[in-house]
């Protein structure tokens, strides 16, 4: 019975070994496939990322280009306005300005100039009028004297 029990134990052990090795093989297989899956995914992601990066870079490059053109245009505009003498801002201060803002600046400036001109004319007009009226006021008492002479 003892032998029989031993044989049984042996058989169980063998069976266990067999099962174990099977298990490990399976595990191995599973791990391998998992690894493969991961690496595939990683690869995919990398690829995706690369494409996206390229896209982004392309976008950035285009954006930069547009920006550069804009700045160039703005500079040109500013320069032309300056040349005409209608814009009185230093170009160096305006590196970051766009055409739109220059235009806005220009309009603001024109409006301000118009307002200044109107104000200056109003003051000049008052002064001219008041000076003449003051002269006449002070001359009035002298008139009768002049006539009697």
């Amino acid at each position, binding site marked *: 019975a003892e032998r029989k029990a031993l044989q049984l134990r042996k058989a169980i052990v063998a069976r266990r070994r067999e099962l174990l090795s099977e298990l490990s093989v399976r595990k191995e297989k599973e791990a391998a496939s998992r690894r493969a899956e991961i690496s595939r995914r990683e690869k995919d992601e990398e690829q995706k990322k690369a494409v996206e990066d390229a896209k982004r870079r392309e976008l950035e490059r285009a954006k930069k280009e547009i920006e550069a053109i804009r700045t160039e245009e703005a500079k040109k505009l500013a320069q032309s306005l300056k040349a005409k003498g209608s814009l009185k801002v230093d170009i160096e201060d305006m590196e970051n300005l766009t055409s739109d803002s220059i235009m806005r600046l220009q309009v603001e400036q024109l409006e301000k100039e118009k307002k200044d*001109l109107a104000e*200056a*004319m109003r*003051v*000049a*007009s*008052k*002064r*001219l*009028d*008041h*000076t*003449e*009226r*003051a*002269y*006449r*006021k*002070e*001359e*009035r008492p*002298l*008139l*009768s004297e*002049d*006539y009697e002479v």
Partner: protein
Amino acid sequence: GFDEDDIDYSDIDAKYQVQYEEGLDNVVVVDGVPVIDKSKAEKLLARIAKEFGKKGSNVKADDMFIPWDEKTGKSKGYLFVDFKTADDAVYGIAALQEYQFDSKHRFYLNRFTDIERYASLDETYHEPEPEPYTTKEHLRAWLGDPQGRDQFVTYRGDDVEINWHGKPSQCEVAYSKTNWTDLYAQWSPLGTYLASLHRPGVRLWGGSSWSHQQRFAHPLVRLLDFSPNENYLATWSHDPIVVPEGAQQGPQFFSPEDEGNNIAVWDVKTGNLLRTFPSSYPEQDADAGGGAGKKPQMPWPALKWSADDKYVARVTVGQQISVYELPSMGLVDKKSIKVDGVVDFEWCPLGEKDRDEDAKAVAGKGKKPPRQNLLAFWMPEVANQPARVTVMEFPSRQIMRQKNLFNVTECKLYWQNQGDFLCVQVDRHTKTKKSIFCNLEIFRVREKDFPVEVVELKDTVVNFSWEPKGDRFALVSSNDPNLGSSGPGVTIKTDVSFYAHDRTKGNFRLLRTLPGRTSNTIRWSPKGRHVVLATVGSTSKSELEFWDMDFNNDDFGKGAAAKDEWGSGIQHLGTADHYAVTDADWDPSGRYIATSASAWRHTIENGYAIWDFKGTEQSKQILDRFKQFVWRPRPRTLLTKEQQRQIRKNLKEYSRQFEEEDAAEESNVSAELIAQRKRLVDEWNAWRIRCRDELPAAIKK
């Protein structure tokens, strides 16, 4: 220049017996009138009124009265005319005296008072009653206007109107009269008198009641020119002087030796005739082209006064300049200034400093003798002689400066109004005579030896004008191929340039050019600094540009302060448009400019507009048959330089007062306007309600 063609001088009757006696009554008796029955009265009166009208005397049928013979029912062969004033009566008598009404009837006119007097003539002699002493009116009363306003005269249809111009609420008619003048109205240079022109002669008016001041019996007078200080007057008539038999005689009237002459010189104060001259037309230029049959333009003024009223001079083209002493009218030193080929001359004006020095010299305080009169004249190229401009001192006749010029077509002489500079505009031709260009020869007559500066210009100069009291000038130039062949619809392209005297270098330099304009007229403010450029006489363009020469210089009145950049003070203030504008005229203060479209030139939108110096419209009047707008000139201020300086210094204080006055005035005006409008609305509403109430009844009827 004055264009003769503008004035209609047809229907002239040669018979003028001018009687200028003071009368108090306005009733005139007309003898020699046809005897009629009552049925023909209306027709007869209408015809007689028309005959008066033709002679510029305003009489309506209602102003006349026919006495009737009760027995026969017929008129008595005379009638009475009621004139508005005694003056009008005198004029009416002169107008129709001895008028041949029809083959059988000749009119004889007398003042009613005269006939009364003769009829009841007392044989015994009575000492004439001394005329009641009347204080003479203050002829410069308008300067004392409490509101400090200026005046202007307008002539529209037959109506002459004197207007006050001030703030909108202060504008009003000061005086108006129908048929005040028969041709046009003209101010004397200091504004003291208004001259009217009539068939019997010139009349001067003045004072606040616009009473009659003086008359000059020059029949059919067409042009007149006062001396700068209003002491003398020159008149011209197209018709040579005729002295009919029995004409009135005396110092105020022509005598037989004046017959055939056209120009007369008068003393304004006494009304006396000083001397007469024949017209002198310039020789007809054979090259003028298309001039066949066209009368040469009468150069006016034909006589030129020296700025101090001491002399008057006339040129005999090609030969001499004759200078006469005033008031004797004798030829100075009994000889003319002989200048072979002389074409034209101009006296130098008196500057403020010359007047001050004169005053000092009179008071015996002068350090140096005042400057003598200067006379500039020019003669063209002849044979191997170059053309020449000369500046001569008078009466010493010393030649101060002479300049020879070549390839000269024409010279024009422009004195700056202070007598500081003389600009000679020399129109020159190329050797082939194909094109014209221009040199300006500018004489600086306040400096030793009169240095001359030349400004060379490529184009033809159309117009030149010195800034009053300034050292700048403006010119209009053009290289438009249409120049000179102007016709309807042709608008000449021009450039306008401003030049200034550069004191550091002594020369004249271009300040700025305004290219591609159509402006052909420059109008400087009489105070300088502001200038208006206008396109006058065009059917398609009528722009007005308003400019300031010293925009950066706030402290005006003090003259040029620090000039930062050459020409940088020139500022465009505004642009306006007055369609078909024919004239532009600054007020004496330099605050306003009036533009007008005169029916003498065309009949499109006649009328006038007043703008301020920056181009803001103050008022615009479109009036058919509008002919003339002229501001009343003012004499020089009585304030001394120091007084003026004080006023400018204290301007803030004055400004405060004026602002207050203006604000009060304005609220007053708007209150008045609101009240007026409310009244109109109330009237309207009342009428509407009445209509509505009465409407059903009206419909039922």
